[in-house]
């Protein structure tokens, strides 16, 4: 999904809010709000993923997965360090979508691989992936 679509949603909303029918004026909110000139860059925080779309279903996470989204040059990344996963794409939405695909791949991989075929770090990862979802 192109980020410009999101910008269009917001622009459409802003247009509607700014437009008032002829012969009317906006009564709107009370004009007085506390310190109107608050602003500045908001601190970085990760976003949670609560569900993963799979085919026509949505898989619910037992605990939300924290995703850190960043940008380097013309690529966006969505990462989770605990799972050692990253997704990438041309927009932040593509990066998250890519992340979800990798998540599902590894979930299936560890579900279908017996412990006897795993060692070291892979056993730890299997434990993490085993408990990811509430239901299938």
């Amino acid at each position, binding site marked *: 999904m192109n980020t410009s679509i999101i910008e269009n949603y917001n622009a459409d909303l802003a247009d509607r809010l700014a437009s008032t029918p002829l012969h009317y004026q906006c009564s709107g909110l009370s004009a007085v709000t506390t310190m109107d000139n608050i602003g500045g860059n908001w601190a970085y925080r990760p976003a949670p993923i609560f569900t993963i779309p799979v085919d026509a279903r949505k898989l619910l996470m037992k605990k939300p997965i924290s995703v850190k989204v960043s940008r*380097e*040059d013309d690529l966006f990344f969505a990462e989770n360090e605990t799972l050692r996963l990253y997704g990438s794409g041309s927009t932040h939405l593509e990066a998250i979508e890519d992340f979800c695909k990798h998540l599902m791949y590894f979930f299936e991989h560890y579900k279908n691989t017996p412990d006897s075929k795993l*060692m070291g770090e892979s056993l730890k990862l299997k434990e993490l992936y085993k408990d990811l979802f509430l239901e299938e």
Partner: protein
Amino acid sequence: MQVDRRVIESSLLSKGFEKQESSHHTYFHHIYVGKYTGATTYTSRGTKYKTYNIGLLGKMKKQLLLGSTKDVYDLCSCPMTGEAYLQYLKDNNKITN
């Protein structure tokens, strides 16, 4: 610092990694004595991924259980051999049950 995707893929295959394909990605799992070690990474198809630059190589660092992007570069191009990589994993206690 950048490496061609095909070089990455052939390097990993020659250094103890097994390939698994999916519709958009190719996954590489490191195997030792017939078991997965947990060092796993993937490459993506698509024109943006013909070459892996320092940013993309950096993302693979944790997946490959390596300490620096330079180590990733060395593994994915030529300098680090499969034996050296395996020894690195052992020295850093990444291959223990």
